[in-house]
């Protein structure tokens, strides 16, 4: 809300900032809001089980979160420009699903075997891009509300995967689809490298390039962005389509890791994605939050899950405990982050 400056002299704000932040702008402190929570969870984890801080276990956490982290990355970009994409979770299943359907030979793997294995990755990414184009067309070109469009798409795409797979799991994926999900580079799973690299790239792009800054400008005030000469529609197209392609990539990683495409792949992930982004400080009203914050958000969620698993909490109470910790992390992070949220 541009108009909310009530007090004509916001001197106290400045004073407070001096107190906490010194030379570091508050905005940047905010990115670190979750760091204390992460440290606490790490300590608790280590107390619960000495395994927690072992490299193996940490890699395990990173690997299991890598695919959903890509969804968080995509959603964060999209939220920053003040749009929304709920259909990412379905794209994550459908894109590799279509590839598997076309590539996997007839028989036990349930595919059609129409294309050679090498086509799998291009097809996956192309399906992702296509979904993005449809979403962008409906949202940007026809001016439909992003929430409803992508909610509709979520249902359609999920249904399409059930349809082509007949509800069955595709097995016998070609080696190209398995590669990223299974290889290790320098002793660390490739999917971790991919995830961390993409986050690093996104942090740089969003923080230090004019394309990245234009995302914030658009999310903050689209008319002002237009007036400043930003081609807002083009940026929105790029963001939405890239988001879907990233979701397809995430699907590829997950399919590779599980060596299969289940017909329910990705179902329900969008809740976690939003929770991570929002806990990580991304505003649903656009223009606010950083990639680093989003990353800490998803990291925190997966660390909590890992600790709960290690602690051997009775299965029936894991859900409630998980929720409570998330809620607590959220409240704490917002209290330390200061001020009423929007």
């Amino acid at each position: 809300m541009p108009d909310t400056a009530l007090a004509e002299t916001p001197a106290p704000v400045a004073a407070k900032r001096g107190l906490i932040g010194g030379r570091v702008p508050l905005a940047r402190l905010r990115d670190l809001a979750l760091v204390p929570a992460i440290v606490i969870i790490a300590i608790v984890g280590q107390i619960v089980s000495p395994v927690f801080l072992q490299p193996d276990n940490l890699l395990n956490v990173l690997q299991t979160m890598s695919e959903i982290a890509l969804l968080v990355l995509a959603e964060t970009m999209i939220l920053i420009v003040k749009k929304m994409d709920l259909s990412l979770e379905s794209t994550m299943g459908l894109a590799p699903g279509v590839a598997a359907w076309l590539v996997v030979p007839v028989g036990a793997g349930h595919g059609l075997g129409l294309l050679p294995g090498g086509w799998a990755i291009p097809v996956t990414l192309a399906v992702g891009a296509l979904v993005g184009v449809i979403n962008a067309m409906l949202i940007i070109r026809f001016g439909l509300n992003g929430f409803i469009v992508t909610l509709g798409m979520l249902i359609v795409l999920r249904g399409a995967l059930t349809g082509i797979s007949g509800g069955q799991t595709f097995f016998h994926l070609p080696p190209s689809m398995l590669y990223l999900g299974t290889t290790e580079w320098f002793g660390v799973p490739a999917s971790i490298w991919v995830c961390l690299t993409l986050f690093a790239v996104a942090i740089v792009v969003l923080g230090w390039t004019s394309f990245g800054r234009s995302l914030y400008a658009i999310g903050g005030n689209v008319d002002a962005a237009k007036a400043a000469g930003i081609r807002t529609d083009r940026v929105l197209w790029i963001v939405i389509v890239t988001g879907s392609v990233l979701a397809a990539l995430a699907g590829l990683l997950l399919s590779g890791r599980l060596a299969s495409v289940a017909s329910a792949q990705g179902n329900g992930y969008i809740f976690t994605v939003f929770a991570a982004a929002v806990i990580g400080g991304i505003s649903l009203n656009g223009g606010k939050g950083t990639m680093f914050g989003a990353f800490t958000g998803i990291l925190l969620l997966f660390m909590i899950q890992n600790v709960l698993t290690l602690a051997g909490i009775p299965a029936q109470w894991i859900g409630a405990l998980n929720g409570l910790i998330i809620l607590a992390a959220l409240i704490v992070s917002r209290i330390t982050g200061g001020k009423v949220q929007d």
Partner: protein
Amino acid sequence: MPDAPARAGDGRATEDPPVVQATGVTKKYGPTVALDDAGITVAAGQTHALVGRNGAGKSTLVSILTGLQAPDEGTVTFAGRPAPGLADRDAWRRRVACVYQKSTIIPALTVAENLFLNRYDRGGTGLIKWSALRRRAAELLAAWSVDVDPARLAGDLSVEQRQFVEIARALSFGARFVILDEPTAQLDGAAIQRLFGRIRDLQAQGVTFLFISHHLQEIYEICDVVTVFRDARHIVTAPVADLPRSGLVAAMTGENAATERHDRTRTIDAAGPAALNVDALTAADAYRDISFRIASGEIVGLAGAAGSGRTEVAETIVGLRVAAAGRVEIAGRHARPGSVPDALAAGAGFVPQDRHHQGFVPDMSVADNGTLSVPGKLGPHGFIDGRRRDALAAGMIENLAIKTPSPQLPVSGLSGGNQQKVVMARALADEPRLLVLINPTAGIDVRSKEFLLDKVEQTAQSGAGVLIASDELDDLRVCDRVLVMFQGRVTAEIGRGWHDHELVAAMEGMNLDA
């Protein structure tokens, strides 16, 4: 068209083509005609004023002259050459810089980034160099003597600071032609003078201005030529010297001879019960130890520069803020601090500072907005009788001459002046004993302004007390006395018949006794 397109700036013979020329421009928004075959010609070096009532099409012309929108018909030329394509924003920005009426500041970004949005400093890697950017921003702000840390979020700035950031940004492009759309509407006197000083410097360097304002005295102060728009059409262009104030107003309103306001005679019942009694009101960071009394039938001004605390005092009285200490009595009743409903129940009527922010609900109808604070009058048991509501609203529309086709129209569909009238109508809806008005005429054209102030006087005449918190001299002229605030304290009380400079000096904290 009454006049041929302006042969502007008669005095200065110009062989150069005009800096900008728009001819035959028509622009429609759906059924609304915002510009109808209108045009303007601005000669190099001129400071050209553009005036007209709310909704006359001024801002629409600005958006066409700055390439935000294409006209439906008509042409725009810069220095004789056709305007660039809409997509080529950089070409536009080389030709013309603009402070738009609507804020183009992005609150979530830093001041530095707002200043240099989309034209960042890049290092050798192609990445943005934030330190260089901040340095440049600091220099730019220093040049404007705006005391703001460039690393601050723009959303945390005061209205005035934000306005200056916009102005500084517009002028930093180095364009030789600058458009300012109501730059002074949010500024106090001192700030306006600072802006004008700066404009004069640039005028001396040959920069051309197109200046839009509802403060007519400003036109006379810094402009050479004035163009008047009315009802989406071009009416007249003339050197300011040739068009006295009455002629200007007549051109804007289409009526001859703007009626001079006659002083109404009001009886102030000084002995009777006070409409408002404020006693030792203190809020730690805004104002200290404020005490005054308003009798029924009395109009009291609360003047002061931005940041003097006048707005905060007024907001405290109606319950929008809570004071740390002190007491407020409205029509003899102690209102619970911080409760607007209580203040309204005690008999207050209220026009908030910024109508867009606190004044109305844009998607609700004129009738609903006008009756929002008087649910009790609309029907029994909290039910709303549509006919009763519409009748009430029709009364308001009639009484305040609100121009609307129907009480059912959403307020967002009204012009600014009429929106303000709706807010005013609501304040008057419950026959208030005390009327609290903050900047009641901001952004309102002259005609509507006179009209609203007239209503205020009528209300006082019927026995209500009125508090006007404003720094607009026109608003304060109707007051029986003016309390001047400076840095959170009441520093002077001035009776009727003051001179402008006297009041302005008091608002700036100068001690007149000295």
